[in-house]
């Protein structure tokens, strides 16, 4: 059974522009997929709707069988606590240390300090930045900041991990490292959906690719070049 379902989802803005047009897609639990397409194709809107940062004009989005498009208040907050989200510009708090940034989602859930410390260090260890827990984000490189953002997204051990252009500001080598991290999280059962315009990078990953163009899905499947990449 699908964990995430988009059923005929359309998003039309007030100015009449349509970011998504009658989009339907399903994601099974533990799967990994890339959303790709040109700038303005609807990738970010797709993720925003899934994060309930915006509401679709039409259609339904079901997560674990629950329509999330009409949720509000505490229920919406609880839903977001069970998601992990990574963004191109990290959204790290500059006046808080790396440790404090990563621990934020756990503090919200009211976890004990001892457990917070254990979880935060495990997450930082996964992204290879354990030794930088006392530093402030401004003293880290862009790639390190992105990895802190990933650590914060996975520290709650979410079932679903969403990433919007997580490698947008990174060089190819760092981008591959970040993608490998997502792959590792997927391998332990997390559903991962990554929006990226870096076609070369995602086609080398050998996972499902959903290509959007002007708000519509124009391709959905595993790219054939994966085999070539693997062979190569």
């Amino acid at each position: 059974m699908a964990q995430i379902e988009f059923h005929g989802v359309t998003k039309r803005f007030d100015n009449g522009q349509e970011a998504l047009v009658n989009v339907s897609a399903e994601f099974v639990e533990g799967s990994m997929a890339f959303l790709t397409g040109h700038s303005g194709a609807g990738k970010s809107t797709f993720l925003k709707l899934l994060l309930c940062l915006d509401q679709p004009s039409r259609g339904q989005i079901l997560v674990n069988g629950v329509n999330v498009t009409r949720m509000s208040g505490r229920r919406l907050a609880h839903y977001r606590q069970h998601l992990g989200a990574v963004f191109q510009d990290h959204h790290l708090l500059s006046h808080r240390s790396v440790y404090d940034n990563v621990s934020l989602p756990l503090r919200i859930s009211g976890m004990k300090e001892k457990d917070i410390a254990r979880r935060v260090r495990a997450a930082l260890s996964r992204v290879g930045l354990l030794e930088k827990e006392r530093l402030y984000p401004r003293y880290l490189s862009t790639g390190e900041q992105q990895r802190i953002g990933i650590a914060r997204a996975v520290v709650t051990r979410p079932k679903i991990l969403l990433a919007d252009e997580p490698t947008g500001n990174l060089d190819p080598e760092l981008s591959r490292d970040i993608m490998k991290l997502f792959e590792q999280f997927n391998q332990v059962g997390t559903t991962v959906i990554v929006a990226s315009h870096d076609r070369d990078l995602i086609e080398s990953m050998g996972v499902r690719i959903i290509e959007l163009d002007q708000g519509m899905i124009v391709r959905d499947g595993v790219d054939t070049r994966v085999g070539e990449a693997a062979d190569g």
Partner: protein
Amino acid sequence: MAEAQAQAPRRASDPWPPVRPGIGAWWRDHVRIGRETVHFISARLGTSLLVWLLVGIALALPAGLYLIQQNLSAMTAAWDGRPGLTAYFELGADAGTIEAVQARLSGDDRVAEVMVTDPDSALDEFRQFTDLADALDLLEANPLPASLKATLAAEVTVEVLTGMTEEVAAYDGVAEVVVEKTWLERVSDISAVVSRLGVILGVLFGVGAILVTSTSVRLAIEARLEELKVLKLIGATERQMRRPFLYFGAFYGLGGGLIAAMLISLCLVIVEAPLSSLIGSYSQELDLVGFDPLFLGSLLLIGGVLGVLGALMAATSRLRDLEIL
């Protein structure tokens, strides 16, 4: 779409059960927020002092009026125990008339004491309290009349006093009857005016204090907007996001209450000497009532509550409209 709904059966159990942190987590969160609020306020001490002053002044005026009203009430209550009247006789009034009035009042259970002052005694008192002794010697006759002062029992009502006054005034030879209640009634009226003024100003300045705190909290929210967006994104509830700002409101309000208490005590120190003199001229001692721990506690509590209300107003409206991305 209907087809899609049919194809997507809903699951009965909640896939995202609310996290229920224990009382320990709740307490830790409050301690952490309290510490962060103190840090935030102390880092912006100039602005915070300004807010405290504004809230303090807004609270001090109605609170000061309340204190004045309390003291006026206490004064009138104390003097209400000794209402009385003074009858001034016509010049040359015969002793029989004076004795008749004296007998009438002395025989009344409602009269506690009757004291007659003959013209010669009145002249002696006049000499004693004025510098006009030489001028009085030039007069051929004593210009002062005999008088009778009656002090009534404490429980006597204004109506009884009025009736008694009319009765005494009806005697032949009585020139004038002065009721000592009159000025007390004025004080009582002033007390009522001050009381109502206190209520009106209390409401107006209370709203002012709420608006001051609300504006200050709104500025604090704008300063931490990025953090709030992140918190909302990672699943903080509105209550969790609002909590730090309620602390701001409470701190601003409590600080304002403290400033108000300081301003009022400063005012009391300034007016104490002239007020003592004024009260002393009415043969009374200055005994300020109301400025006690209960009053100070109430001032702090009211300040804190108004601050929290202001913060609640600002945080609720701003956080509701918060756009994350």
